[in-house]
């Protein structure tokens, strides 16, 4: 049966890691590249096969569980290393392996001149393993292994060029900030375990409605802690600051980890735990508000950034905010849908940006680009597709998912959030087209040196771009709005997973749980309550806002740049604020980093040196004294040892005789 072959999906990249470690130095660059890409490609095929097997099953019990072995068993607590494929994880697995494969192929071309080619693919494959473990795990603990694994790989890859101090710093920052989130995540997990009694998804979710009171303190705390973990991994307020710095890593890494896959892990977790979140309306509300705030906030920062990758990074933060927004208002499917389409076009944007940077001999400043459309036709074309897609112009992918999110927000009655999302969409269109215009249109501002080497990227880099461009166009067509009346395949596919809590509820659910059912049902299916006319209006609004943003971008940066300059001068304080990202990094530095640093200094000088070291040294001195005596037995002569051994045997026999 296919069900037994799930483990092979994460195992393939791991095997590639092992092979790379063992014989990588004999394979050469070409061989290493083939190995890495082949493993991920195969993993994709296996995932595809598993998904087909899943699709062949009846809709209501689409779930494949593959238990590899029992990891640990303590009393009646047992954790299996076991993988689970359901519609939700199938979407994730396909996105991870599919986009991952394309980015691997791209990387072969991108990294070809790098000295640490082999190390790069080692990390990249290790990341694929961890990510697939995260996505396919069927319990929290195994998922946490993947969760930490992707964190580690992210750290390693951000600091890939560790000889650059800024890269090493960025890696450290990402790791530390993530740790804060991980800490929350771990706490949330322990909360769930101590109250829910299991870490297995199925068992825990089945038990949840009975165990946790609706809106109770426990479930709210637990879900908020989980969400803290998600904000860390998915770069939401307040833990988003690491992601823009993470752009120090190689561009394919930014595309794979910091745009398409790892940063969506938080979204995945919240979606996976939707049962729990639906039991905690306060948490859900928090998710929505944080998501909306992040979406708007990061978008505004994106306007003023000049580094092409940083613009994209803030855009990623913003888009992740949209996903959380969707989850928060109960439109889980919309969130996952956006996750998928975003993976396509954001990976494409990053890879395109990488192609531009590659062509310009590692120039990342938008002010030193311009007029690249002719020199880089393929890059330009695909980038344009991605930009339109993210701006939300039909019929490209971004439109469908973003519209569904806004629709979900509106339908659930969260008008404020809807408004924030709408404004954010406009700003998104604006800054994305600002990026596009600055890079590809207008007069060339390229330095002479870079212009000299200007070249279109090799085919191995262009091909993934093309594939992703196609996906960015057609990717959204699986989930058209209800008013189009053609049926929503994506919705149907995920429906069994996102059944409202009622379906999970146990018979003796308390009255609170009954309320939860009603609410959950309302949240999950509120989308259908909006009349068609309103829905058309909503679509029009979002497209209109996007078009306005695009128009402004063209006007300000292409046709009459003088307006942009005068605006910048008139609103200098605002521009400075945006350019410096609201001084959030500086704020964190003053509020968090410095006090902790000072405290640590104090602890080190006083507590560590005196107390800890004193204890350790004291223990060591004690044992040194004791062992000076014992050492007399340690003569180094085999005969002596044998003698004591025989003495022991004699004593043992004496014991037998006496008993």
């Amino acid at each position, binding site marked *: 049966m296919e069900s037994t072959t799930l483990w092979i999906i994460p195992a393939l990249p791991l095997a590639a890691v092992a092979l790379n470690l063992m014989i990588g130095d004999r394979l050469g660059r070409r061989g290493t590249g083939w190995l890495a890409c082949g493993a991920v490609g195969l993993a994709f095929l296996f995932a595809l096969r598993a998904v087909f097997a899943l699709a062949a099953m009846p809709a209501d019990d689409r779930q494949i569980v593959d238990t590899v072995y029992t990891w640990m068993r303590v009393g009646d607590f047992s954790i299996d290393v076991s993988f689970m494929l359901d519609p939700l994880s199938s979407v994730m697995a396909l996105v991870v392996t599919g986009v991952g494969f394309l980015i691997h192929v791209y990387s072969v071309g991108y990294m070809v001149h790098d000295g640490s080619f082999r190390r790069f693919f080692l990390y990249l494959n290790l990341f694929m393993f961890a990510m697939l473990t995260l996505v396919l795990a069927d319990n929290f603990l195994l998922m946490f292994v993947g969760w930490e694994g992707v964190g580690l790989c992210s750290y390693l890859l951000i600091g890939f060029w560790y000889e650059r101090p800024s890269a090493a710093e960025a890696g450290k920052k990402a790791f530390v900030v993530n740790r804060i989130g991980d800490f929350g995540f771990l706490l949330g997990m322990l909360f769930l375990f101590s109250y829910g009694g299991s870490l297995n998804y199925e068992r825990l979710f089945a038990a949840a409605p009975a165990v946790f009171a609706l809106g109770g303190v426990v479930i709210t705390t637990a879900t908020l802690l989980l969400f803290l973990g998600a904000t860390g991994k998915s770069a939401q307020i307040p833990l988003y600051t690491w992601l823009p710095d993470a752009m120090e890593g190689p561009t394919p890494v930014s595309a794979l980890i910091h745009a398409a896959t790892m940063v969506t892990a938080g979204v995945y977790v919240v979606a996976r735990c939707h049962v729990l979140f639906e039991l905690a309306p306060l948490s859900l509300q928090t998710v929505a508000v944080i998501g909306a705030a992040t979406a708007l906030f990061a978008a505004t920062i994106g306007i003023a950034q000049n580094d092409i990758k940083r613009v994209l990074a803030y855009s990623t933060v913003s888009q992740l905010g949209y996903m959380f927004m969707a989850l928060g208002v109960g439109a889980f499917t919309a969130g996952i849908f956006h996750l998928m389409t975003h993976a396509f076009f954001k990976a494409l944007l990053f890879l395109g940006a990488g192609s531009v940077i590659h062509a310009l001999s590692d120039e990342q400043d938008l002010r030193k680009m311009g007029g690249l459309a002719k020199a880089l036709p393929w890059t330009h074309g695909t980038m344009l597709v991605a930009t339109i897609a993210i701006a939300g112009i039909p019929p490209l992918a971004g439109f469908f998912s973003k519209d569904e999110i806004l629709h979900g927000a509106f339908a659930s009655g969260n008008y404020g959030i809807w408004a924030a999302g709408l404004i954010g969409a406009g700003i998104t269109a604006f800054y994305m087209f600002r990026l596009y215009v600055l890079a590809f249109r207008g007069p060339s501002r390229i330095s002479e040196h870079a212009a000299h080497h200007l070249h279109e990227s090799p085919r191995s880099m262009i091909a993934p771009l093309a594939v992703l461009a196609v996906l960015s166009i057609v990717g959204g067509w699986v989930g058209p709005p209800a008013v189009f009346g053609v049926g929503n395949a994506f919705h149907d596919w995920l429906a069994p997973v996102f059944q409202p809590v009622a379906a999970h509820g146990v018979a003796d659910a308390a009255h609170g749980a009954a309320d939860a059912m009603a609410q959950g049902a309302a949240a999950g299916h509120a989308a259908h309550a909006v009349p068609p006319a309103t829905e058309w209006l909503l679509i029009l609004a979002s497209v209109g806002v996007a078009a306005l943003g695009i128009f402004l971008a063209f006007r300000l940066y292409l046709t009459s740049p003088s307006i942009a300059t005068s605006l910048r001068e008139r609103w200098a304080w605002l521009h400075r604020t945006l350019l410096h990202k609201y001084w959030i990094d500086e704020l964190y530095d003053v509020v968090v980093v410095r006090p902790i640093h000072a405290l640590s200094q104090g602890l080190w000088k006083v507590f560590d040196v005196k107390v800890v070291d004193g204890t350790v040294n004291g223990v060591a001195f004690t044992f040194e004294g004791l062992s000076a005596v014992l050492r007399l037995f*340690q003569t*180094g002569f085999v*005969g002596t040892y044998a003698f004591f051994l025989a003495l022991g*045997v004699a004593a043992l026999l004496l014991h037998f005789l006496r008993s």
Partner: protein
Amino acid sequence: MIPLTWSLAVSAGLFTIGLVGVLVRRNALVIFMSIELMLNAANLVFVAFGQHMNDIEGQVVVFFVMAVAAAEVAVGLAIIVNLFRLRETVFVDEVNLLKG
């Protein structure tokens, strides 16, 4: 039919002889031989109990012991030869490298 006690007595005797050999001799080769003697004493017990309990497994274990003994002797002798090359001696009380 040989009484179990007889075999055990012989085995105990052989084992003690081997043990004393390990304790009193300085020549690594003779110590090694004494260890072989002890192993054989153990083998005898296995066979004796196997016969006593009418079970073939005692003999299977002896088979394993012999295989391990062969491996052990090969490695041990190689070490002794190397020791001799380095130190010109096979007397264990002239070698105390085990002292940490």
